């Protein structure tokens, strides 16, 4: 499946330990975050009640009546757990490691939030100003941020590759017009535009993806254009043209596979910029609407309330950790794709 060249690069990438282990770690983290409901939720993973097993994480809510309470709304699992322990009838339930939903405010009697980190209250990183568990919000915030940047990446790559290839392939007026357009778009402060648009409509996940994509496809387009331009003058393209291959066939079957390596080296850095953009927008309050769990929103709470240090520290640490991992991967990929070997003449 892999071409010999790709195989060689993969082997070189694996030899770069810092990047390779970062890659494994981030893949595991993304995979785990897809099942965040089993790690951080106020619903138990498993309930054993009167000889029956329930898995309330996914699926419909279980009303109070199914556990012998007299209410129709969702059963309070914390009460249920206490009751199970009191009754000692062989009923049990297993709560997730972090027994809090990211949107749920926990109130400890006689105290006002935010609560400091404590193992006893199971708020391992404390709570934010509204009493919501920080660990839980970090986990869900990670999932949203990483999915956001992956979708953003997909959209920008599709636009960038398409327009870049056309610019390089067609040249002429098309090239010139888009050169100007790119210059205009890359000079516009993107945060300005998003802040202005955010005052018209409250942006949701997809609006933000499209909006950011509209202003960040240019970087890749530029490289893609150069690459296409170069490949276009190669003999194999000329040969393809000579035997009568159509334009789209030349672009998609010949030029694109040969310029794909440049796209791969940009991959991790696009993820970093996606996460960074979303976080700064959320930080300023122009990102995803509250109460979406978000790292930027935690950063904002942290800076507004410096006396509750655990808020800022958790958010900064989580963000730094993930961004550093992704950058390490990017650096390793870049090195693996770099055919240059430096030699000295000392």
């Amino acid at each position, binding site marked *: 499946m892999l071409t010999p060249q790709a195989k060689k690069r993969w082997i070189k990438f694996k030899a770069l330990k*810092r990047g390779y282990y970062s890659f494994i770690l981030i893949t595991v983290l993304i995979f785990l975050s897809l099942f965040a409901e089993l790690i951080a939720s106020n619903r138990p993973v498993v309930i054993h009640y009167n000889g029956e097993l329930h898995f309330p994480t996914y699926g419909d809510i279980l009303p109070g009546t199914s556990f012998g309470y007299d209410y129709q709304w969702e059963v309070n699992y914390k009460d249920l757990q206490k009751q199970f322990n009191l009754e000692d009838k062989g009923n049990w339930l297993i709560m997730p490691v972090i027994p809090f939903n990211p949107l749920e405010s926990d109130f400890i009697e006689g105290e006002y939030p935010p609560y400091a980190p404590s193992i006893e209250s199971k708020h391992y990183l404390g709570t934010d100003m509204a009493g919501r568990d920080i660990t839980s919000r970090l986990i869900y915030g990670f999932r949203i941020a990483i999915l956001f940047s992956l979708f953003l990446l997909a959209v920008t790559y599709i636009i960038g590759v398409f327009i870049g290839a056309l610019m390089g392939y067609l040249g002429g007026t098309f090239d010139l017009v888009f050169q*100007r*357009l790119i*210059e*205009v778009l890359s*000079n*516009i*402060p993107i*945060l*300005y*535009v998003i*802040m*202005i*648009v955010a*005052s*018209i409509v409250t942006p949701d996940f997809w609006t933000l993806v499209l909006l950011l994509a509209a202003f960040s496809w240019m970087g890749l387009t530029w490289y893609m254009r150069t690459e296409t331009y170069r490949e276009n003058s190669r003999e194999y393209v000329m040969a393809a043209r000579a035997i009568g291959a159509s334009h789209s066939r030349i672009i998609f079957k010949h030029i694109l596979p040969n310029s794909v390596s440049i796209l791969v080296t940009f991959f991790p850095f696009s993820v*970093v910029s996606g996460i*960074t953009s979303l*976080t*700064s927008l959320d*930080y*300023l309050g122009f990102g995803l609407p509250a109460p979406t769990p978000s790292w930027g929103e935690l*950063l904002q709470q*942290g*800076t507004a309330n*410096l*006396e509750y*240090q655990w808020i*800022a*520290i958790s958010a*900064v640490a989580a*963000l*730094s950790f993930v*961004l*550093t991992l*992704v*950058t*390490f991967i990017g*650096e390793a990929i870049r090195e693996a794709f770099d055919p*240059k070997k*430096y*030699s*000295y*003449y*000392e």
Partner: protein
Amino acid sequence: MQGYFTQRLLLTIPTFIGITLLVFTLTRLVPGGPIERMLAEAQLSSGETASSAEGFGSQSLSEDQLDQLKAYYGFDKPIITSYLEWLWKVLQLDLGESTRYGESVWDSIIERLPVSIFYGVTTMILTYLICIPLGIFKALKHGAPFDHASSAFIFISYAIPGYVIGIACVSFFAANLEWFPLGGFVSDEFEELTLWEKIKDLLHHAFLPLIAYMAGSLAVMTFMMKNALMENLSADYIRTATAKGLSFSSAIKKHALRNSLIPLATHFGQNISVILSGSFLIEKIFNIDGIGLLGYEALVERDYPVVMGILVISAVLYLIGNILSDICVAWADPRIRFGEAK
């Protein structure tokens, strides 16, 4: 060469128009523009004195007055007409008045200019002072433990956005350890201090923001320097130079170094716009009253003349910076001849 730069200069005009027209149009599409904001404010203040029973539903201004107000701010014409009027004013160096304070946009920008220039220039000088030696050292010691350790550190500073580093610095060094002030450009009693105390006070306030500012460009510049030097070191002309009997160190000094500075020269022009506009996120965190913060506040308050004014300045600087980069490159590398037939 001259022809090339004239052409470049002329090409900035459509770009400038494109940038300003796009943002201008956007500001016009926003409901709740300056007029609405002023009305709401007027109603709030009149509501305190008169009965507030009128509420927001009824207009306290007559239609006539409203039209007058709109005409005054140029909101009564179609977008293109008012854009052209605005552009004509800009060409006469008139950026208009802030809808918030009634102050001239020029004045509010010039007032904040010293702060932004201070941070911009200091950051740039410090970055060059650190990056060039560090890059050279890393290139010469490529693969050594120091190279690996410093690379890891530089990557981390590159990965984390400057303002997040700023937040980390504020919460740790300022709020927790109280080594540095929480923000601001200078202390309140700055005027009463002696010159020596003034410098100390300024640096005391500037230390953390400068770290945040430098974090991002540090990585880019250091690696640019390192890679360029390494590429030159393995080039044939260095081999020739050493073969002739030149020592390796003077081959670096006399030949490789100058060639390696070219990419840094290219980068120089792009710094110009950063020098002046700064980063409003960092300015917001450290509460520095620079141009970045001015633009941000104007955006939040929908004070669009100020937004457009800052956009004009940053766009012009960016476009000039690009051309300046080319000039720097031509100056640093006599081999490069722009615009001449191959």
